[in-house]
């Protein structure tokens, strides 16, 4: 079984990262923005795991686990706040949250 070359994995990760970045910067729905950040995080995980796997290192896997765990914590905090704001403003679009600009 021939394995996929490292370059391909890194390229895929870079593409995912770019897609995620573009999503955060262009989308206006807060949930979609959060999802895009998750895509970026997973692109990073892919990079780390790819490097580790091909070179036989271990630490990359460890960091990837930590990233998954922390990202979950972040998502918990984020979704809690989205809920709180939705209850007050009935929206998840950042453009409609315009109190803070004067």
């Amino acid at each position: 079984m021939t394995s996929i070359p490292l370059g391909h994995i890194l390229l895929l990760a870079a593409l995912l990262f770019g897609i995620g970045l573009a999503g955060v910067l262009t989308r206006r729905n807060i949930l979609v923005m959060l999802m895009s950040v998750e895509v970026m995080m997973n692109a990073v995980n892919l990079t780390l795991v790819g490097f580790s796997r091909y070179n036989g290192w271990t630490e990359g896997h460890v960091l990837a686990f930590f990233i998954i765990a922390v990202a979950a914590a972040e998502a918990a905090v984020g979704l809690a706040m989205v809920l709180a704001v939705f209850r007050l403003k009935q929206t998840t679009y950042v453009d409609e949250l315009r109190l803070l600009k004067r």
Partner: protein
Amino acid sequence: MLMLPELIIVATGFILLVLDLFLTEKQRDLLVPLALAGIAAALGALWLTPDHGVLLGGRFAMDPLAWWFKLTFLIAAFVTVMLTSGLLESAAPEPRKLHSPGEFLTILLFNLTGMLLLASTRDLITLYVALELATIPLFLLAAWRRDALGGEAGLKYMVIGALASALMLYGFGVLYGVTGTMRLDAMPALLHADRTTLYAAALIVAGVGFKLTLVPFHMWAPEVYQGAPPPVTAWLSVASKAAGLSVLMLVLFRVFRPFLHDVSFAIAVLATVTMTIGNLVAIVQRNILRFMAFSAISQAGYLLLGFLAGGSVGAAAMVFYLLVYAVTNLSVFAVIILHNQQTGSTELTDYRGLSQLNPLLALALMFGLFGLGGIPPLAGFVGKFLLFSVAAQAGYHWLVGVAAVNSTVSLYYYLRLVRQMYIEAPAEGAVPLKPGWMLSAGLAVTTAASMLLGVVPTVYESVRASAAAWLQSLGQ
């Protein structure tokens, strides 16, 4: 023993969390002194902690500069809790009261733990975890009031914070791929001056840039500063910035030190843009919290000057300025917090006539603002002077000129507030503010420190000695 301050803070956090369950609303007023006692104990422990040594197989290390960073974090936390006391107590005025004091303090202390750990991390994994612990709790604190303003601030902060950590993580990933190690100290030998290294450095600096509010990564700051409760803003502007600086110093001095000289021009440009934009936009602000946000942005620009010279002088100048900035900014925020707590306003013009209503408060605020503006003999001047001299030493004389012009501009807008306080007459029916004793004590201590740090050279001398020792430890 090396980790004692961190352990004390974590323990205090858990004690508060558990205790909170068993206390009535009134009894919760005890939580603030308890938190203060915990931080004071950690300060005492820090005093006894040796300033070098390693734990956990080298993943956690003390060095002389980490000691100063931890000191700054702990002092900032102590003062912040003092300043927040008035809003946390059960008798606080209602719309501005911060509910659930137990949880508030616990989260603040966990956040503090993240920052304390951050200064001691020596590999990418602990760095990442500590950094997130120093960041995620801030989102919650910013949204503490659960009103529309706070929620919006928290949300925006979180999305941008998550984006920043994703960028930085990608930089970590690249770095790891190139060097094959997570250890910061092992990296310089394995890195080459090529495009990949630059790439990783740029991603990491961008990620930290959000935390340090460097332009163009600063746009969240004014909105979060404005929407968060003022004590949280104070904490954010001081501790979060200090955390950002400690990461930047870890990364730039430990990992990219061999290439620092090559990118000094880029750092100079970043510093120029940051201080200029911060100062120019601050001029037109009418809300005092946004005003302080742009002031904080420009201060970050001055701080960057310390990276222009790789030696211990630059590091010492940055650490000293950070300490000075922390006490000075907190003294300014003490008055802002009190004013907001009792009037509910955050408008600049509502400070008019303060010198006639509360002469001492106005005096302290004026000293704080002039300290930020860098008027001698206040400590802010000495700090800025040291940073400017680092830039001059590195040959960036044009940058010193730019920074000098920027200081003039900054004085112009700090004077706007001084003018409101001293020259304008008080509004009809305005009543003097009544500071609680804890806030008064916090204000008095920070104001005194922001004056004495400039005149009494002892602190700078010991920072300088620490920086020299730290540089030696880097060389090995």
